[in-house]
């Protein structure tokens, strides 16, 4: 298959990578920039573990061709924190015990970010709806919903 060098803007940095047209965004992220925080759990767009933000919109990176996001801003979990300064969602996930095995956590946090960017003051039901496509096998979602609700409040108070 034809290989080409393409530029991607990931977490605010330009990456030049070699790609073929069939490479998915998640494969690209995990392979060359080594951003392995984006997880593969089903690879067919059914679990949300590979969620990243493309121009701020939640995107299933396992079901998105890398080529299609060439000129767009990609945000992965690695781009959320600034140095050791965690994003309020990351901090809330730690504080509220919202993590167990942690495999769904990156996708869950990015989906929650997209939700809060659009609706800074969601009800519990709105949080449930917003995360409705992200699977977690460990937590029963209770503490994840707690964490997102708490992060929303922290962000409204200017934690961001």
């Amino acid at each position: 298959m034809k290989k080409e060098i393409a530029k991607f803007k990931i977490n605010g940095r330009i990456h030049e990578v070699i790609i073929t047209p069939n490479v998915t965004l998640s494969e690209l992220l995990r392979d060359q920039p080594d951003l392995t925080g984006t997880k593969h759990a089903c690879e067919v767009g059914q679990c949300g573990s590979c969620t990243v933000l493309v121009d701020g919109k939640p995107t299933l990176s396992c079901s998105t061709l890398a080529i299609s996001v060439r000129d767009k801003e990609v945000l992965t979990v690695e781009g959320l924190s600034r140095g050791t300064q965690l994003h309020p969602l990351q901090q809330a996930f730690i504080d509220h015990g919202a993590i167990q095995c942690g495999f769904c956590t990156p996708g869950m946090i990015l989906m929650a970010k997209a939700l809060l960017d659009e609706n800074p003051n969601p009800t519990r039901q709105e949080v449930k709806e917003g995360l409705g496509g992200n699977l977690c096998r460990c937590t029963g979602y209770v503490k994840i919903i707690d964490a997102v609700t708490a992060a929303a409040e922290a962000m409204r108070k200017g934690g961001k």
Partner: protein
Amino acid sequence: MSETLSVVGKRLPRWGAYEKVTGAAKYLADIKLPGMLVGKILFSPHAHAKILRIDKSKAEKLPGVEAVITWEDVPKNLYNPNKLDLILVHPELEFKDMYVLSEKARFVGDRIAAVAAVDAATAQEALELIKVKYEVLSAVFDPIEAMKPGAPKIHDYAENNVSVHFGFPVAWGDVEKGFQEADVVVEETFLSARNHICQLEPCTCIASFAADGRLTVWSPSQHPFLHRRKLAEIFGMPEGMIKWITPHVGGAFGKYGSLSLEPVCAALAKKAGRPVKLEFTREEDLFATEPRQKYITTGKIGVKKDGTITALQEKMIVDGGAYYTHNFSTTAVNMGGFTGLYRCANVAAEATCVYSNVPPTGGVRGYGNHEGTCVLEQLVDVAARKIGMDPLEMRLKNAKKAGDPSSTGIPMETCTFEEMIKLGAEKIGWKEKRGQEKGSGTKRYGIGVGIAMDVSGAQPFNIQHRNAFIKFNEDGSANLMVNAPDLGQNVIGALIQIAAESLGLRYEDIHVVSGDTDSTLYDIGQHASGGCYQIGNAVINAAEEAKRQLLERAAKKFEVSPNDLNVEGGRIFAKADPKKEISVGAVVKEAMYNFKGEHLNISGKGSFSPNLNPPPFSVVFTEVEVDTETGEVKVLKILYLADPGKAINPSTVEGQLEGAIGQSLGYVLTENYTINKETGALESNNFDTYKLPMTLDMPETEVILYEKPVPSGPFGAKGIAQGAMVAVTPSIANAIYDAVGVLITDMPATPEKILEGVKKRGERKR
């Protein structure tokens, strides 16, 4: 032990939390080694077939292919992927019937061949070039059919496909007499679900041989030392020539109690002479890793009019699938749950384990106790209805008390069933809700209860041998070395809290080394909720030794007795004169760096082998609404009361219980592991067809930790994680029974089955 606790009992960040929220945590699939190849397995497309020929020559010639292996290339050593034969009191009951690669296909998904290549595309292409000539045999997918004369024979040794028939090893009383004494006898047959773990991280493994022949395996094992020994036996290697590393694990719930990819991965790495990574897709994980056994259980209960249970009998046919794996052990635990939950003078249980041409089964959260207790708890509700008694009253009548034997037969230090049942009933409003009208429309309300006990390890049935090592650093921090793979349950966090509390240090002062067989002491591994209770006790023993050395050094300096000193928050001080104080770091440093020749790295080793096995207790209430037109069940609320002894970290204990609520919800309602009746192929092969509960499926939940510390536990703690589903599942089933009178005898309770039950009841009433 200090009365006031400064680290234990606190809601502290779980171990590894920072790495997990930033994406820095490395799971198996994230690890890359120089020169690493991609492995892939060729699975049998037939449920039962003899392999006549395999031609791998074309695959071997494909550029980029470094190894192609079939059954002819792997050691001819039979094994059982379940580790328990190494530690079970009856090792002869864990049969070995599996090779690294099969010489005969016994289910759709049996491992036939494997390749290692420079990339995934080349590996896939190579698989397609392997030509296998099969002689397709007739197959059997049902255990009853499998036992009939003339059924296809799956393993040569097993007549009528029966691997083992056994009775409950610790039966007591006389059940026939017990049933005669009863006023009412209820007998029902229940089918459990072949439910799958579906941990989010698909099963993955890396293996690499060093130039000196030493093998390193990276794999999310729950039992690194036992699995290392298994691998050593398969390959005829000395144990010390294998190093086993367990990185972050993306969920386990019993899955990694079995060897899975490691033997194939190691065989590929050996042939290729390069590191190999084998990574399952979700579909492969679903058909080629072990779901639960399918139990066909006929349960019988005898009760007197006053609610006293006079006899309990359980007869099971266990469909374990194509290989033996955990058949004996899960079934024995199932019997323990069924016979051991209540006071009852006469119990008996027996089981026949059967092979069929479906995916082999394994150990999944609850490990048999989940299925055995579910049958019992449903029978209790049917019997209560027959004698016109409140099922909660019947449970109170028969509940065990402190001093009674638990389901393992070992006397219990505490028992909180009675208190928790009463507290829960008040909280949920049991009396009012149970008595209220079910509604006459299509939406019927129901409320149900389930209770359970589980274990803190596998004493007395398995060897339970734990070790921990603690060494101090110059700054007063300490390293804790344990082999306690953290599967997400935060056992390492709990062990850090236990170590810090015991040493008088802060949580952040403890740095853990875990999951590496070269740099930790021997440990039997994570199973049966034994990590916190058993390793926690080993950590306390290690801490006591390290603290003794520390205080002896400090006592010399102050010219007092070590008994006159105390440690808190990293400072050592004289109890009588707190002004006499020194930092832990200063003492440690002086012991390392002095010209007196009195050198010591302050450290301690601790071991633990339990005599007791205190069970955690669960009491769960569920409220549902059942739609009699669609058969759909909406779970409205679940109230979970649990007694974990002392909750070392309440947040992570709650997390285990909340997670189990989700898993039970899936078990009862949505997760349908479907095997095609013609071909034996798995139909529910991804999340669109094997439906795990999502956020919107979750009911309102409330968790109450009813802590009653046990004297034998580290700071009073018991196990909690494994048994967390056991009471939830029957409480949901019993709530449905209360709502529409349909006894759930075939899990999962899909809308079709409920609708059929509602229809049948209507016909009977007419």
